[in-house]
């Protein structure tokens, strides 16, 4: 049984034109989000996770630009829509939750007003209807005494509570796809666990598909159905969560996993650091840090090699030579 694909990214390329040169922040990536799935994009800082999310929302700002590719949602290529139409898609069909809840909320409006605004921006309804709905949403995301707290300002909320409000705003129009960019990273461990649970609960309830961006493999193992591993703007490996975590193929994925302490209590770091993206290394972008580097890795960019129907890896160790 194959699940339905709800969002499909094909050969997406996003560049930033800086004074120092062109930065290929996202360099030719493709992946599918299945209906009802939680897809985790994992990678270190600068790997292009956030730019991928912003590209899907078409929120990449100058000097950044989406160069090519397709983002297909409901048989529509989002990159071909007019700005007005895209505005309609945002919020209605796809919504996004950002990392920092403090800067995602406007300090001079009450929480309730901000959630209500998110509703009236996309739906035709009276102010009263919208504010009743906002109260319900706040309750749904676990804000106690939501009626009273409706009139509170963001500074009266803690970090975890603010993030719940941002999630309520994202849910305002029941989007089919929710993109969450490190939503729990800025929060404390016990609060982080609460937010993760909230996401899983909301997925069940609204049959949403979620793209969850994180650098924390622990979080990934907790919530992911499928995983995309990114490094320096490219996808190194993608597949179902079990396959990628239990049988990682790419040396980078293996390296990331061995950076966490194993049963024996050893950690093995990946040598070196992420390369600058203005003059990235040729060939496979990971080759300067790779323990299994071969001659061909320095010359050519490895293609996506199919391991199984659902597991792909971009590495010459598993074939992919152009003979």
């Amino acid at each position, binding site marked *: 049984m194959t699940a339905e694909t709800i969002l499909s990214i094909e050969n997406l390329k996003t560049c930033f034109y800086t004074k120092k040169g062109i930065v290929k922040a996202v360099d030719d990536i493709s992946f599918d989000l299945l209906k009802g799935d939680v897809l985790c994009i994992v990678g270190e800082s600068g790997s292009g996770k956030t730019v991928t999310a912003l590209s899907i929302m078409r929120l990449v700002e100058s000097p950044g630009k989406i160069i090519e590719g397709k983002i297909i949602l409901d048989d529509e290529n989002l990159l071909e829509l007019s700005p007005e139409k895209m505005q309609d898609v945002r919020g209605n069909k796809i919504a996004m939750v950002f990392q920092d809840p403090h800067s995602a909320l406007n300090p001079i409006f009450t929480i309730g007003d901000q959630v209500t605004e998110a509703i009236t921006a996309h739906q035709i309804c009276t102010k009263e209807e919208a504010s009743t709905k906002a109260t319900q949403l706040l309750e749904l995301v676990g804000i106690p005494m939501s009626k009273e707290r409706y009139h509170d300002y963001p500074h009266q909320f803690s970090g975890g509570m603010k993030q719940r409000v941002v999630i309520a705003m994202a849910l305002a129009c029941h989007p089919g796809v929710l993109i969450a960019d490190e939503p729990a990273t800025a929060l*404390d461990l016990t609060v982080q*666990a*609460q937010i993760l649970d909230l996401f899983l609960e909301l997925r069940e309830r609204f049959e949403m598909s979620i793209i969850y961006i994180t650098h924390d493999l*622990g979080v990934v193992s*907790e919530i992911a159905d499928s995983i995309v591993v990114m490094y320096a703007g490219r996808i190194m490996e993608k597949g179902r969560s079990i396959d990628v975590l239990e049988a990682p193929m790419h040396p980078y994925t293996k390296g990331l996993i061995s950076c966490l302490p194993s049963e024996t209590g050893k950690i093995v770091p*990946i*040598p070196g*650091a992420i390369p600058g993206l203005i003059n990235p290394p040729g060939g496979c972008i990971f080759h300067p840090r790779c323990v299994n580097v071969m001659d061909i890795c320095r010359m050519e960019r490895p293609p996506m090699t199919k391991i199984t129907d659902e597991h792909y890896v971009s590495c010459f160790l598993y074939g992919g030579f152009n003979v």
Partner: protein
Amino acid sequence: MSNLIEIENLRKYYPVTRGFLSKKRGDVKAVDGVSLFIKEGETLGLVGESGCGKSTLGRTILKLEEADSGQILWRSRDITKSRKSQLKEFRRDCQIIFQDPKSSLDPRMTVGNSIEEALIIHDIGSREERTRKVGELLLKVGLTPDFISRYPHELSGGQQQRIGIARALAVNPGLIVADEPVSALDVSVQAQILNLLMELKQELKISYLFIAHNLWVIRYISDRVAIMYLGKIVELADKNELFENPLHPYTEALLSSLPGSRNRKVLRGEVPSPMNPPKGCRFHTRCEKKLERCGSIEPEIQEIGKGHFVMCHLY
């Protein structure tokens, strides 16, 4: 092994004032009666959520903040009341590494000057000796001597943190307080820095007070672990003992909130304000195993097993 640092009932309150006459409204009880010791060559991990006072505790031990009450014994000498001029040797012996390596380095000083500054302040060596020492330190933290003339902005986060470590090491300290030294770094770089700190400890017999909120980091690096909640240590034990046999309900919940652990217990609510900590046991508002007296009587810290301390009415 003798104790390098011992603190007894340490308190640090920050007054909260308001209005024109700065009328005192209360205190933020950042550190509220903490006792612990750090042996020579040992790593004590200090875990807690944000706002629990772990950084303040680290800074108060180093006398970067003046304690309100309590005692600090450094190599069996009471330094609680010592004045600045008497502290020079203590300052050399106890160093700190900060969370954000970028803001802890002067952007206008070269890496070499930054490291050498520590040596100049403590009058160590002649100019040539110092330059040689800086080169050695750079090698020791996994960089090359040609970093000497570079500026912080030319370095990556991991490299900057290595400079922070080199600076702390320059004066051969006995204790390094590491305040979240890896939480600003990427996972693969985190692992590099942690391994570096472990190697240095083996080689130089340094003690660490390692402050972090990340439990796997703490588990990896510590010998003993202290769990802090709202200004108090609620549990303290050997690493393995603590992770395998957590006693305090807060520790239990904290460990089970580690992603990937089985039978998770998600804590309800959030950390209460340290200005108005709950009466009785400070954790009782979020505790699942709350007893009647938890809301009124504050539990004492007691030793359950060998070196396993817990502050809870259940035991």
